[in-house]
């Protein structure tokens, strides 16, 4: 599936990178590529939602990034 939104870093628990999509839904990246680790980056990513929905982060749905496209630089 495709997620389009902005990248955000959350200093919760041990910290993680996520995406807040255009509908405000939260997606937690379990394998964030370094190119996506920029606050506010506007991206579109092909993701796979993981079965491991329980986590210590308790923020959004965990997704694996399969491919991505940067729509707008920070």
């Amino acid at each position: 599936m495709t997620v389009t939104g902005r990248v955000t870093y959350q200093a919760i628990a041990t910290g993680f990178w996520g995406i807040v999509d255009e509908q405000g839904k939260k997606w937690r990246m379990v394998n964030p590529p370094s190119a996506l680790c920029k606050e506010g980056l506007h991206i579109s990513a092909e993701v796979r939602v993981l079965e491991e929905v329980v986590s210590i982060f308790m923020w959004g749905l965990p997704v694996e990034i399969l491919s991505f496209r940067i729509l707008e630089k920070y």
Partner: protein
Amino acid sequence: MLYTIGFLAVLGSALGWLFLKTYQLPFANWIGRSFWISLLIYLLGLYFEEAALLVKLFLMLPLDVAVFISLLLLFNRYVTKSKIWFTVVAAILLAVKFFFFDLASDWFKQNLSTTKDGNTWSSVSLADDGELLIDLNTQFSQQELFAFCKKLDVSCRLAFPNIARPENTSLDEFYVIDIPQKRSKDWEKIAKEFQSAGLIDAFEANELMQLDLPAAAPTRKTQPDFGLNDPYVPQLWGFEVMQVQELFDLLRNIQPRKVATIAIVDTGVESKHEDLQANFHSINADYDTDPVGHGTHCAGIAAAVSNNGKGIASFSLNNRFVRVTSVRVLNRFGGGTQKDVINGIIEAVDKGADVISLSLGGPSLDSYQQAYEEVVKYASQKGAIVVAAAGNADEDAATFAPANVKGVIAVAAVDENLRKASFSNRVGSLDMPIAAPGVNICSTFPNNEYRFLSGTSMATPYVAALLGIMKAIRPTLTAAQAYQLLQQTAADVPDAQQTGRLIQPGKAVAALLAWQ
């Protein structure tokens, strides 16, 4: 600028007066009076000039007086004798004053003075650890700062993490930037990148500089050590707001009926940690390591060894009341399945846990909601109380499991201002909501380390710790009874509608004792 104009005006008015008076020309008296106005402008300019007071008094002022008197004496000769001689010497003296001296003065300002916004700290010697102190622009969040740090490949931490009442000062806006050794020479460039992004109000090199505290900032109340010798106790801001002294006073005079077991169902717990080992009870050696650190952090909050001269302390003054154990259900990325969590709860209950502490969760899925309810019932039947984190998405915890499961005590996080932590889910719509500190919580971390973490994960083991003590005193206490005592004795906080009330351990235990 005012200083330069003042000096030239003083000089001009004095020379003009001398010239006009010597040749008996009109306006001599008028020019003479203007000297005093010029002198006032000069003194004001000198006062407001950016330089240390000693530099002004013993360098700038004497040199200005010397130049002034020399020129006046020379001009006196000019009026009557050689004009060329005066012109040459006057030019040299003024050049010395305005070029050589002012350059020297600038050098003094840049290298010897302390300023807040300085961008020219070329000669400072930086600390190896935490090269820069920055003052975060309040329009930006901590998360945005951390994200920017990640972008610059530097690390960042709170400069003063033990501030118990940040509303009294702006020190909580200060962060320390650690620059990798190989890039330490680029610290000035890195600091300017923060400034260019508008993220910071000011930066300082972290050694020679002193923080420029707001003049009106009141003296901070020192966080008490509660009579404990653990070095990080003064960093545990939550202890004061939960009034743990009341709890400690009670526990010294109580004989518990059992040692209650708190199960940290999480990423594992490093059982050999110096501040956990004496309070740790292993049920499976495979669970006694922690590749993530999250479970170890939670275990420290729940049951760190108190008064051992190491690290932090917990609600338990000694190991007569509670011990902590580990059930690993999450992987090395901190994730897992609801099925794993349910199995973990069952295992903890079967191994005799009295309190199940779940600093984890995920979206509520219909397929597992019934199973969650069943396992909580199972725990209850076996005498265990289940406590779970509300979640960190700033959403309604009603859609978040296991916090939303019937029979579970759901814990929201409050910050040091006792407001809802910005990330904390809202628990107001749940059956058994309660609040505990969950921002900048210091606790144990693998490799005998201690770290500050934030999350409802951190608030949950505080409640688990209290429930453990209550179970030790009254082993038959049910979740509903325990919650009733927590709720009755808790303190009101500004966002209690969203977070529930803040636990007050001493009052809860006192109520339990009165109830027996």
